[in-house]
């Protein structure tokens, strides 16, 4: 029994992945679709219930490349330390002008900034999400794009995000949902 216990401990230790804290919690809607999200190579756009947009991509090297590309687009520069910091963070929802402060802040400071932020700007006058998507598409063209929206996110924001994706020639993407049983498939309710 003890052997078994240790076997299980090893198993769980090896399969557990610790991921950094997500700055937003999102209550995603459920669907009957059962296509799993790929484990690697995902560009994730999170939209929370207040319509704030956050951006995330996996792979530390890719994150650094994307940040460098963005730095070029916005004519700001990040030093090695800031890039390193960015590569290990989770989703970011900061306008570019606050990015440096965000990276310089400590854990507590970042939490506060995440609460206060309005997300990545998406209005047509200051469309920074387009820059993000553009940078990500350029540096990681093979990555899948996934949109994780909150149940109560409003339609104009969702439409705007989809339209930004379309502008960047990202016409195929996935919506992240929870799995629920299919009512119509197993026992059709029509007679």
């Amino acid at each position, binding site marked *: 029994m*003890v052997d078994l216990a240790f076997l299980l*401990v090893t198993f769980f230790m090896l399969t557990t992945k610790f991921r950094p804290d997500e700055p937003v919690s999102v209550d995603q809607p459920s669907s009957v679709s059962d296509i799993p999200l790929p484990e690697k190579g995902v560009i994730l756009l999170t939209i929370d219930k207040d319509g704030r947009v956050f951006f995330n991509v996996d792979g530390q090297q890719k994150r650094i490349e994307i940040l460098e590309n963005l730095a070029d687009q916005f004519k700001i520069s990040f030093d090695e330390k800031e890039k390193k910091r960015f590569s290990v963070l989770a989703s970011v929802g900061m306008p570019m002008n606050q990015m440096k402060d965000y990276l310089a802040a400590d854990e507590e400071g970042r939490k506060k900034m995440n609460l206060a932020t309005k997300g990545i700007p998406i209005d047509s006058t200051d469309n920074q999400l387009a820059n993000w998507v553009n940078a990500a598409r350029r540096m990681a063209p093979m990555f899948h794009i996934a949109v994780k929206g909150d149940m109560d996110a409003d*339609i104009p924001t969702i439409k705007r995000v*989809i339209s930004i994706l379309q502008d960047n020639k990202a016409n195929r993407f996935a919506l992240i949902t*929870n799995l629920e049983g299919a009512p119509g498939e197993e026992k059709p309710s029509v007679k």
Partner: protein
Amino acid sequence: MSEVQQQGGQESGKHKKLRAKKTSTHIDMTPMVDLAFLLLTFFILTTTFSKPKTMDITMPVKEHTEEEKTKVKASLAMSVLLTENDRIIWYFGQDDPTKPPETNLADFSLDGPKSIHKVLLDKNKLVYDQLKQVDDSVKRGLIVDQEDTIKRHKALVKQAEKNGIIVLIKPDDKAKYKNLVDILDEMLICGVGRYAIVDLSESEKELIKNAQ
């Protein structure tokens, strides 16, 4: 657990020493086992096995001129307008400002009198019955019972049927993202192969207003 056996005092000194050596090789393992189980519970509780699921959608390339837009047959086009409080307004045919189409109200319930699920199943019977046939053939062993094979067959059925309905999903600004996902989900359940997310026109905004 280690135990030291008590010996009677009668034995000789030589004997006593030998016995003591033998028993001291046992180690008390209780704390280690405790720790092992503690770790086990910790990892069991922190692990999540459920991978997030996704719903694939493909949007058309943005068209720049009127001519590039795909035209759909008016008789097959079903417009589904989503609006606040989880309500649905649907109609068939073209959206013509001079001759407003007859609209119907619906909701997201599965079984209710106004269930959009029933409406879609009814309108899409042509395709849905064929999809059911695929399921039947799987049961009878005509099609290999493999998930991707079944999916491929179903996709073929959906593509081949040119007279199936085309659903135009038009979410209102007051609708929620949840409604959009629900209706996309309903497309999947009812086997609607051709659907698109479209913007509302001015006359349809009027329709929504009038329906309230």
